[in-house]
């Protein structure tokens, strides 16, 4: 029965101009989810109730200060110093308004907190300082891809400290708490690209833990996550490594142009023979790189903090990253560009036959 006021007001002409548009307004970003409209309704109701209250209070104050200001010939006049009737009124009216706001907020929250049964599942892992979204087909991406008009349940976990997934356009926010799973859900109502922030302070690069929520038409979405699941095999190892450098979040701490960062720079790293760790000196070879990714806390480079999170990286991905690191180091062995035309004994060699690749 209390839904009647909500129904009236949302359909009514008074509030319609404020909330009917789903585009960006002064206070709120565009609405891109099913529950955003509800949140905006409660926001604007509270806003107008507050604005009216503020104006009344401040106007009363200003008018009385002007009217009763100290001046020659003016004197304070006796008046009652209490009024039970007034106290009751200004206790009850705000209480009723507050209860309305509470009720709508609670109803709206139950919606946000209850994913529909048939929701599509995506797993979200937060680490310092990047996102990993895992899709049911095994694809992993640093961006959140969603199908439009489909409820999506997000299972949230963290590998280190508390993060929080926040998409203003969806009005979605939930903490990623290490040691437990949190759940949230969203049904996106329009296609497009929307900012996705970390909203819980998590250290040095908290303000750069930003990615995008990209909402696709259903067919497009399927194609996208299929591409994400299979892309590794469609590019050269060096190209794959370059892309993984960004996707896995290595870019947040390791530069490739030599500048200092939270972690050692990757420029000219591979092949270094005098790489100083806290307690010994090593050569940066493929095994060292592998160990640094799989067990990051085992050996720390001198002068740096033990901050690298444990990331989910497959063997194929590690190989690609190693190739990428070789490609940006002047100390790495140069790869063979072409088949040599002179053998060891000086005789001419034939190039090996070219094998036609099977067409997919």
């Amino acid at each position, binding site marked *: 029965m209390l839904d009647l006021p909500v129904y009236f007001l949302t359909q009514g002409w008074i509030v319609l101009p404020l909330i009917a548009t789903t585009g960006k307004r002064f206070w709120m970003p565009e609405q891109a989810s099913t529950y955003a409209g509800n949140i905006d309704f409660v926001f604007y109701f509270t806003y107008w109730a*507050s604005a009216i209250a503020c104006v009344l209070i401040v106007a009363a104050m200003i008018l009385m200060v002007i009217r009763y200001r100290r001046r020659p010939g003016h004197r*304070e006049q006796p008046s009652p110093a*209490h009024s039970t009737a007034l106290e009751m009124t200004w206790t009850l009216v705000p209480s009723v308004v507050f209860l309305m706001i509470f009720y709508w907020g*609670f109803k709206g929250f139950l919606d946000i907190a209850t994913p529909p049964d048939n929701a599509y599942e995506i797993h979200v892992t937060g680490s310092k300082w990047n996102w990993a979204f895992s899709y049911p087909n095994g694809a992993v991406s640093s961006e959140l891809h969603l199908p439009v008009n489909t409820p999506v349940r997000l299972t949230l976990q963290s590998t280190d400290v508390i993060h*929080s997934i926040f998409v203003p356009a969806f009005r979605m926010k939930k903490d990623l708490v290490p040691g437990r799973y949190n759940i949230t859900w969203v049904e996106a109502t329009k296609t497009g690209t929307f900012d996705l922030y970390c909203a819980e302070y998590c250290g*040095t690069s908290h303000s750069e833990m930003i990615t995008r929520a990209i909402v696709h038409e259903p067919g497009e979405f399927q194609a996208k996550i299929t591409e994400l699941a299979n892309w590794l095999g469609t590019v050269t190892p060096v190209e794959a490594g370059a892309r993984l450098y960004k996707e896995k979040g290595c870019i947040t701490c390791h530069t490739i142009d030599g500048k200092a960062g939270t972690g050692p720079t990757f420029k000219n790293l591979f092949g270094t023979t005098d790489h100083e760790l806290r307690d010994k000196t090593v050569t940066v070879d493929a095994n060292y790189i592998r160990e640094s990714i799989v067990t990051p806390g085992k050996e720390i480079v001198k002068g740096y903090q033990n901050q690298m999170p444990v990331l989910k990286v497959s063997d194929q991905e590690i190989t690609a990253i190693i190739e990428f690191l070789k490609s940006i180091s002047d100390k790495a062995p140069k790869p063979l560009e072409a088949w040599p035309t002179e053998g060891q004994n000086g005789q001419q060699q034939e190039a090996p036959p070219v094998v036609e690749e099977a067409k997919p």
Partner: protein
Amino acid sequence: MSATVTPDIDFPSPVPPAKSANYLTSRKGLLSWALTVDHKRIGLMYMVGVLSAYLLGGVFALALRAELINPEATFFADKTQAWNFYNQMFTLHGAVMVFLFIIPAIPAILGNFVLPIMLGAKDVAFPRMNLASFYLWLFGAIFFAYVLLKGILNTLFPGLESFWGPGGLETGWTFYTPYSTTTGNSAVVAATLGAFILGFSSILTGVNFIASIHMLRPKGMTWFRMPLLLWALYATSIIQILATPVLGITLLLLVAEKVLKVGIFDPNLNGDPVLYQHFFWFYSHPAVYIMILPAMGILSELISVHSRKHIFGYKFIALSSLAIAFIGFLVWGHHMFTSGQSPLANAIFSVLTFVVAVPSAIKTFNWVSTLYKANIRLCTPMVFALMTIFLFTIGGVTGLFLGCLNTDIHLHDTYFIVAHFHYVMMGSVLFAFLGGVYHWFPKMFGKMYNEAFGRFAAVIVFIGFNWTFFPQFIMGSQGMPRRYATYPEQFTSFHLNSTLGAFTMGLGIFLVLLSLAHALKWGRTAPSNPWGGNTLEWHTTSPPPTENFSYTPVADDPYDYSRWHYVSDEKGYRPLTDEEYAKLPDEYKGIHH
């Protein structure tokens, strides 16, 4: 209500004592201050310490706002260094302001000075414990100074950190786990131990005030004849003694986990990170009522005295302070709506948050009603008081958006929150505090400040404050997260305005301090009662003698101004003699409850 005066109130004119007999001049030398048990001197020592902490916290604020003037790094070429520096700035700003400034400020400075005199007493119930409270504050402050110095020296001399560990603090003033228990980037243990020590200063002050109000009230001062500032300080003291120990234990647990690896909050040690949030906010929410209740008490005094009208709704204001203190203990979970707390817990915290908003609204309406048919003097304290009502109204209504479950999901951890708490903590507590400082300045120092200077400074602070924080509401609801060292382009104009406002506010605060320093040196002599107040501190000289009164005061209705008559030569008020009072028309004789 018809007006009658209780006939047996004895009303001698306070005889000004010889110059050497006021509390400032009666004893000389550093030791007479360092070992004093005079609540007035202790209040002044707190004032020097706490205001220094305020200025330090302000410098951190200006540094972080300077970093945010545009999305690029401002102070350092290297991004990592820039963000680490920013994280230190926002953390230290919060920690210094909360623990060293805003929680002690009104109780320890104005409360210490005014409370015993308002009670017609010679001192607080436990004067030596009062001095101990001050030294505990100082000791805690030294810990923070150490943390800060370590950070500065580590930055200047890079090799130093491997010698004595990291300095500074970059966990956020809230020390959320497991970040705080696992970070190797800052002096978390030293900072939390400092906060732990400061807690005792707060607790002992609370004990002292409760004992004083129970035991030292004079003849005629029943509970409902007490000035509202005392009701406010009483409610505050209850929160101080019940809530602060919880923070103390929580911080010790944090240190135990960090140093001894006892698993409480870190999931890697089988702990629960959200448990920390419950422990922390169980104190830190009531803490905000420790901050605001004394400010509301000051407002009740200032509005009434400078309107020359009995405060409207005395009983409702008095009881609402107790209501806020009690219900304030039941709402801490509203800081945790996105943490994964159950919908049931969320709903209970949400509805109780709305309940606790009601007494604050009642107070606001009562203050404004006091202005009706008044005679309003727009002196600097009154200007600050009226500004406080305006800013508190905005701060309070924006709390509604945050207590409401579904809007809070969007607004939590955005700049909307930052703006909300600055409007209530700074806009309300600081402005009320400054109003109180100007109001009791003549009593404390026997000098009057310059009105034009004071009002001008107030206006600059007001403009600067709103310029800084109002844009933050808008960018918060548009999605700008908090604790960000850099940000997307679309928020640049908001941040630019916020930074310009912050520097304006800094200028205003500087002018406030300058006006007070100017008054100390060149202010004209203040009369005993420049404002015509009827609370007992105006019944003694400005400044008071060490024992506060040269006679035994008897209390009257604290908001009955009819006995005081303005003398323009003195620019102050003197009490009417009995014959003069008898000649007043009946309707101008006192208004009593």
